[in-house]
């Protein structure tokens, strides 16, 4: 499951052991395609990784803070610290490889 959050809920990302945040926008084609792929793999990581999504249009300050200059942009946080970043679409296998490499 992916939880759509806004800036005022960002504490949930900080509190999670490992969190993956999908920075997206409604007008972005690749974002539209990536979102179901992230949703699909999120179940496999239940209890280990928390998944969030953030609309960059409504949260430009967060996008700036984490250096999101291209979307879709997945940022992996470990104990609230930015640990890795994945830019653009990735198929499920590649996405899992990216997350596993960070666990």
């Amino acid at each position: 499951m992916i939880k759509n959050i806004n800036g005022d809920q960002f504490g949930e990302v900080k509190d999670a052991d490992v969190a993956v945040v999908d920075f997206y926008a409604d007008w972005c084609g690749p974002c539209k395609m990536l979102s179901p792929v992230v949703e699909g793999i999120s179940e496999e990581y239940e209890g280990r990784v928390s998944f969030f999504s953030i609309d960059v249009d409504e949260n430009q300050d967060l996008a700036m803070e984490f250096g999101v200059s291209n979307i879709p942009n997945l940022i992996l946080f470990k104990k609230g610290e930015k640990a890795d970043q994945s830019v653009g679409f990735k198929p499920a296998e590649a996405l899992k490889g990216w997350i596993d490499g960070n666990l």
Partner: protein
Amino acid sequence: MERYDIAIIGTGPAGVSAAITATIRNKKIILIGKKDLTQKLQKAHEIRNYPGFPAVSGADLAKALKDHLDQMGIGITEDQVTQVYAMGDYFGLQTAKHQMDMLEAEAVILASGVVQGKLLPGEEELLGNGLSYCATCDAPLYKNKTVAVIGYSKKEEEEAEFLGEVAARVIYIPVYQEETGAMKNVEVVRAVPKAVRKADKERQIETDGETITADGIFILRDAVSPGQLVPGLETDGSHIRVNRQLETNLPGLFACGDIAGLPYQYIKSAGEGNVAALSAVNFLAAKKAAKQ
């Protein structure tokens, strides 16, 4: 959105051949490319090793290929595929005409030829970090900012103008001879780009003249490399990694012709188009059997 059995990208001998075989095997296909097939073939002087055509000009071979498609009732969809997404159980195709309402296909055959031209030094390092190939994708991130755009053909002026509607300032560097048309809120700088790099919070384009500084860089060219066209695709230099069945590392995605490797020969491309189509047909049959 209706889903095609096979989407074939490219209208050179490989794509045409794949379309013919897939149609003979009763698959619902979409063939995406150009009505005049390919400029490369059109301009080929004389081909002497295509069996059945002892000494044929590229233009005549192109005409024969087009006639073959016409006789079989295979149409060509004129469009440009900008990205292919492996969604797991299908593929999404983003094109110039389908930015958000993407085309869908069960299998894809890539036959789009080899990329001409080299990347700029620094381009790969900067991609996704302030450098983008897609104006319509990333433009809104540069609201009230300065962007520099390198356009490799006249049609990219439309994209620059679109950026002009969003960004505070657009610097456009045309890398072609023709005069640029009138573009609103776009400054044109005639220079030859030499390299791109990151400098603190800004991005820079080094040219034969002045160095251009901006918040973001867009590089717009006709052809993108296969790894950028299909995220997650394994490549081998400028070619896609394939096996004898012309399967790639992504199940359901096949490659044929020049994009699948040397030698660059028309007859080899046509032969591979046939193999790729038959492999795609087998893939669809296996997928159907697994579902039942």
